[in-house]
């Protein structure tokens, strides 16, 4: 009888000991988890803050940072108001498919604009900054806006053609500001007028906001082509053919 009781208490003690150890282990694990979770959260919050601060989208643009001669907030409509058809384009100066689209349709569109057959509504954006080492995409758009602001829509159109004809390849260093200034002058802008605008990248915040507006318009890539409000789809070849058919 006594033996059995002793054995029982031994078992109990062993069990209690094990439970005690388990409890200690759990506390220790909770501490470890807590410490690591806190560390991870601190790092994550810091990264989040860095990331969201880097995004200046939507920041207000003063009058000196807003291009002149725009039609709406973020577009320029070129052509005679009597022209029956409207082609709306979303384009990025760094986008190679836009270059192809321009090569296929640019001269015809410009002739049709001059003939009063069509209006072209240019929505230029810049989301391909990472495709060059010098943020070419947004600098080129800034330069185009400098031309539009100082020399008007026709000069903008010329700059637009020159920029696509000389588009730097993706992954390259793009072209320097001095070249953008040359193109601007070639397009008809006054050198002394555009130089500070291009070197100072003065429309940069407007460019960021214009790009965000494209996304809010439901457009997620370039080139996106609308003919009289009708989206021409993701195949740029089809879109180009439809534009050419319209101009015939």
């Amino acid at each position: 009888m006594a033996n059995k009781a002793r054995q029982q208490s031994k078992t109990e003690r062993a069990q209690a000991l094990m439970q005690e150890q388990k409890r200690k282990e759990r506390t220790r694990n909770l501490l470890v988890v807590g410490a690591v979770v806190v560390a991870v959260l601190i790092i994550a919050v810091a990264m989040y803050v860095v990331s969201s601060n880097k995004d200046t989208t939507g920041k207000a643009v003063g009058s000196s940072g807003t291009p002149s001669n725009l039609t709406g907030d973020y577009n320029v409509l070129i052509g005679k108001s009597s022209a029956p058809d409207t082609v709306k384009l979303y384009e990025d100066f760094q986008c190679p498919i836009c270059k192809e689209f321009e090569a296929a349709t640019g001269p015809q569109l410009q002739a049709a604009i001059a003939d009063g057959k069509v209006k072209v509504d240019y929505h230029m954006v810049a989301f391909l900054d990472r495709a060059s080492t010098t943020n070419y995409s947004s600098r080129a758009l800034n330069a185009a806006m400098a031309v539009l602001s100082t020399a008007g829509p026709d000069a903008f159109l010329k700059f637009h053609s020159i920029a696509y004809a000389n588009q730097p390849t993706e992954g390259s260093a793009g072209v320097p500001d001095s070249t953008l200034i040359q193109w601007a002058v070639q397009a008809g802008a006054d050198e002394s007028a555009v130089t500070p605008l291009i070197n100072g990248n003065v429309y940069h915040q407007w460019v960021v906001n214009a790009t965000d507006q494209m996304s809010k318009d439901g457009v997620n890539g370039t080139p996106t082509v609308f003919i009289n409000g009708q989206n021409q789809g993701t195949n740029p070849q089809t879109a180009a053919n439809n534009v050419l058919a319209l101009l015939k």
Partner: protein
Amino acid sequence: MKQWVGLLARLIVGGVDLLAGLSKFSDPAGNVRAVRAFRILPESIVPTVGHALPTIEIMIGILLIVGLFTRAMGLVSGLFYIAFIIGISSAWARGLEINCGCFGNGGVPADPQRQYAIDIARDIGLLLCSVWLVIWPRTKFALDNLLFPSYERLPDGEQGPSTVQN
């Protein structure tokens, strides 16, 4: 054996998450646009989600690669892949033309139908890896093994690290 499969699952999911997060981190505005492109979330939270995504991916990626909180990270990762699969399928069904933005490219793919299918197939594979880690979180070369050595015997009879055999 399961522990080696688990290691592989950890490295695959963790590696993909880490790379996806890193490639997106430098373009927060682009991430916001990528999230908006799905037209699922309300505009009021789109920027927050866009800014938070790469950070979350990087954290999950690193924790999975080092093997810390494997089960929890497998769970979170799995939930994200379910959300991505729903998002991509829904965009596909609605005929939206989007790039998934998974690796931070903003353009529209040349053949969106095919791209949708590839993206979904990839996400299902990654989801399965994540589910594996939720079921069998004990894996080779994981920090979990150091921090929580006496992780109790796993329910399927697989043993803890102290007695494990290769």
